[in-house]
């Protein structure tokens, strides 16, 4: 579960990125976080992943209080999360299998577990036949699916997708979104940050809209009405 109570975040250069956000995302929910550039979406994601800390207020993620968390506890928090980025962030010198297995090695899982789990997850994202390929040999959509497999492999409680379709064509974007929906149906909480209005509107999910660091709308089955242009 993710909850934010009266959260403010100001950076050292004086920028006030978040101004009093109250928000709760329950376990098993699927939510879109939308808003124009500079609205504070990335700051919210960074606060959830423990990359930045709130200036004031309470941020709680999967039982970790981010306003009090110690630096050495941050890896433990991150192990409960699966993060997907717009630019995929795959290790280009590792194969698809190694990129996914890598996330399990980090947690000290045994070779036996890794050999069982990685092919299963790759099958789930439809990449079982591309295991020995390098990222450069894959399309954008396939690379994003590898990133999803990596985010999924350790059975996280929450998947955070930061502009997951930003670098791929509309048809593949829909596939990625459907894959995230499937993952959510399997019980994982999913939070998708996106700009893509049409894509959001195709899914009848909760839409949390922010602007200038403030929550401007939050509705189940909501419609992404905000137009950046």
């Amino acid at each position, binding site marked *: 579960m993710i909850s934010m109570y009266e959260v403010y975040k100001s950076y050292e250069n004086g920028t006030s990125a978040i101004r009093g956000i109250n928000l709760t995302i329950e376990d098993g929910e699927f939510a879109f976080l939308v808003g124009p550039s500079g609205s504070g979406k990335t700051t919210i994601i960074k606060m959830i*992943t423990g*990359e930045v800390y709130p200036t004031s207020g309470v941020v709680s993620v999967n039982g970790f209080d981010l306003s009090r968390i110690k630096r*050495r506890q941050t*890896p*433990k*928090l*991150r*192990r409960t*999360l699966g*993060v997907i980025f717009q630019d995929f*962030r*795959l*290790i280009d*010198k590792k194969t698809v299998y190694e990129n996914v297995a*890598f*996330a399990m*090695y*980090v*947690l*000290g*899982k*045994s*070779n036996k577990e890794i050999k069982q789990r990685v092919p299963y997850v790759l099958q789930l994202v439809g990449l079982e036949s591309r295991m020995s390929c390098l990222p450069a040999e894959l399309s954008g959509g396939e690379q994003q699916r590898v990133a999803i497999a*990596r985010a999924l492999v*350790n059975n996280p409680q929450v998947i955070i997708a930061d502009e997951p379709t930003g670098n791929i064509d509309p048809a593949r974007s829909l596939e990625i979104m459907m894959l995230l929906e499937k993952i959510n149906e399997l019980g994982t909480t999913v939070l998708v940050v996106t700009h893509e209005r049409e894509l959001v509107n195709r899914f009848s999910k909760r839409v949390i809209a922010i602007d200038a660091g403030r929550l401007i709308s939050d509705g189940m089955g909501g419609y992404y009405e905000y137009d950046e242009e």
Partner: protein
Amino acid sequence: MMRNRLGYYIKEGFTGIFKHGFMSFATICVITACLIIMGTFALLAINIQAIISNLESQNQIVAYIDENLPDNEAAGIENEIRRIENISTVRFVTREEAFSNFLAKYENNSLFSDLDASVLKDRYVITLKDIADMEMTRDQLISIPGIVKVNAHLEISKGFVTLRNIAGLVSIALVLMLLLVSVFIMANTIKLATFSRREEIAIMKIVGATNWFIRFPFILQGMMLGIAGSMFAYLIEWGLYYLVAGRLAVSNTFSFITLVPFDMITLPLLISFGVLGLLVGVFGSTSAIKNYLYI
């Protein structure tokens, strides 16, 4: 779990070297080059010190014996001389031997042809452990009953001591400077090699890797690159040393220079290069990834 992690560290350490082959190659080359430059200077300094020491040892003291002293008492003085701490070697030279040496020195000079050995005294030819204390040793020798005169080239010994001190200081300063420069260059090369992997570190962080989990393969890799660089440097240094020693041995101009045998410096050189390569590898990689760990 621990065994699996250890296996992972070793595998990652090794594969990291080959997957980033060019940067690994560059790192090894820089470490090798820096160690060769530093090692060459250190060997040069060692040989200069050895040459000075050799020249010092040729600076002898001659202690003349009272000619009225019976032979057995004259021989007994040797034990008295040996009791002085700074004495390295003592050799008794009879007046006849000294005379024949003298004549041999002035072979073609008719001026000395009708001289007799009785004009000379029996003497002890003495070498010292440390010529810096020559004056004190001379005074101790003079105080021995039966010794009537001591010839010691104090000015020459002072000159050698000054030369040795200056050479020592200059060598230490140069080697230290080169050491600092080398460590800086080597650490920066490793930093550069690690810079290309900052994305990898960021991914590790986001999937929940602890800082030590990230550090270990890099440190291991730094250690391996450092050791490889130091081994190459040692082998090249060894080859160069034998080459120079061989050239000097057949040279007419520099035949008076005898280098310290390489066998004598093998172990210290190997240990110095190994330790330095290892430390630079470890500290270089640790400091290189430090900036990427805090996200």
